[in-house]
């Protein structure tokens, strides 16, 4: 990895250079919750000032910029007795600035599925390759458990990753386009003093994790606890609303349907993100539902996160951001569910 030191003014110039020709998606404050907490979302920004890199969290991950909640896979034109199919997945390059390490790790997990998997998705690859990613480190929130998962540190999957050293940024460079862009602004080589400062900040971040989950032997434990009452305890609470999967940076399950325009002259094949917690997720033709109960659906969500994905890709699908835990109105959080499994709390 190549490291550079970027001044704060240099960073501002960098953002302004990108803005000259590209869209930037960045954390933006859009309001305040009833309890006084700020609300941030990853949204297009048009100026440096609109970005708020000091954001604590975003309720939504930036997933939608890679796996849109809804997208047309293709369209059809019906003409006389014939029809023509059109497929378009080219997109304008853009930058996402301000992703945390776990959100970038989420992308590298999605890469395994959609770029490097057995069935690569041109739609995903097009967005991924055309997105310039600038990440930034910060101290963890109390409920984040990405350290336990090993997703608190990022070594690839981005263009630039910055650590705030107060008056300057310590920047990891992971792409030639990142290197080239950096060279257009006020950037210098790393000194021993910078390295020392970086290590101290990293230590503070590393020591900041309050929530820990035990992942050792979790896949086996999940198999052993297949019929555990813990699933019923938490499943009974589940609203089957799918909010967890929608805010999750890695949940990628989807459904495909076809729509026809009202004049019957055009059609579209539409992909829409879905959630394994929804009542009809496993309902098949003929009406049979393989997972009719809340507890079964909830259980399989955890199985995919911490067992199934691991079988295929040697790592859990979860990155420990706890967005699902925060969004859940019923208060179901991975840390609590997994703790209950270990401790057999029913």
């Amino acid at each position, binding site marked *: 990895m190549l490291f550079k030191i970027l001044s704060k003014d240099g960073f501002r110039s960098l953002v302004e250079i990108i803005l000259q020709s590209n869209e930037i998606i960045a954390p933006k404050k*859009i309001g305040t919750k009833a309890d006084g907490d700020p609300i941030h979302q990853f949204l297009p920004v048009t100026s440096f000032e609109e970005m708020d890199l000091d954001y604590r969290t975003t309720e939504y991950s930036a997933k939608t910029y890679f796996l849109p909640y809804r997208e047309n896979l293709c369209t059809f034109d019906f003409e006389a007795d014939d029809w023509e199919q059109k497929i378009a997945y080219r997109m304008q390059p853009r930058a996402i600035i301000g992703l945390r390490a776990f959100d970038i790790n989420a992308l590298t997990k999605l890469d395994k599925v959609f770029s490097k998997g057995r069935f690569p998705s041109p739609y995903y690859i097009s967005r991924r390759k055309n997105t310039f990613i600038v990440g930034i480190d910060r101290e963890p929130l109390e409920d984040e458990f990405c350290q336990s998962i090993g997703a608190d540190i990022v070594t690839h999957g981005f263009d630039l990753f910055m650590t705030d050293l107060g008056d300057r940024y310590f920047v990891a460079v992971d792409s030639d386009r990142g290197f080239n862009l950096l060279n257009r602004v006020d950037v210098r080589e790393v000194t021993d003093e910078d390295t020392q400062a970086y290590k101290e900040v990293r230590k503070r971040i590393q020591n900041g994790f309050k929530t820990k989950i035990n992942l050792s032997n979790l896949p086996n434990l999940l198999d052993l606890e297949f019929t555990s009452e813990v699933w019923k305890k938490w499943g009974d609470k589940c609203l089957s609303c799918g*909010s967890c999967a929608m805010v999750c940076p890695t949940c990628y399950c989807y459904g495909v349907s076809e729509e026809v*325009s009202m004049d019957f002259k055009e059609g579209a094949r539409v992909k829409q993100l879905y959630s394994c917690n929804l009542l009809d997720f496993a309902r098949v033709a003929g009406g049979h539902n393989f997972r009719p109960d809340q507890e079964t659906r909830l259980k399989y969500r955890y199985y995919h996160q911490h067992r199934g994905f691991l079988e295929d890709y040697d790592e859990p699908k979860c990155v420990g951001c706890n967005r699902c835990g925060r969004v859940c109105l019923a208060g179901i959080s991975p840390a609590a569910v997994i703790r209950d499994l270990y401790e057999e709390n029913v």
Partner: protein
Amino acid sequence: MKHLNIEQKRPRIAVFDFTGCEGCELQLANKEETLGAFLDAIEVINYREVSSEKGDNYDVALIDGAITRPDEIERLKAIREKAKVLVAMGSCACFGGVTKLKNAYNLDEANREVYGDCPKETIPTMAVGDVVTVDLKLPGCPVSKDEVERVVQHLVWDLPLPTYAYPVCLQCKQRYTVCRFDMGELCLGPITRAGCNAPCPAGGLGCWGCRGPAENPNYEEFFALAKEKGFSEQEVKDRLAFFGGFEDVL
């Protein structure tokens, strides 16, 4: 009309209004970008908001409004006899809707409150399905024109009808909406049937449940969380009663 070598059916549709604001009917005349195509795809037999035609040789009857007078029962039964497909359109037709709120009061009192010295003949509000067999329900206040279009496409091309087993939350999240509970408001989204695309929460208003319950909603947890977030039982019940879709749980 032949299309893709398929003879396209042109359903003969009639729209009838009963007790309600007639907004669902108006909704059928909205969505201008596809209105021409919509009217091309069907044959309007009876629909007073867009046509002076007054035929009774229709196949499909779209019913707007609830049943609140004895003469409406007779009229609805006559429509049912003629229609091959009868669609309850909107929350009033599907559940009784807002007018059903009067059922909680003494009918004479309610009559006096509204009509003063000129009382009208009235009966407790009923949903269309309480009087005749309903083939298809399209709840919502107002009805979603998109869904009506899907019904027409179903009738024309046998395209499958979309169904929504899950609650509003999913579509709400897919719009990047801030949860109304986070804003300190009550929202019926977690138990209400999706399909509306969550316009109310996106517009800053918690869900009022106009589409009625999702499939197998988790009422117990919903009541518990509403209480925990500081909403009184009465407040939740009033909200659930508003459009009449949650009668089973009240």
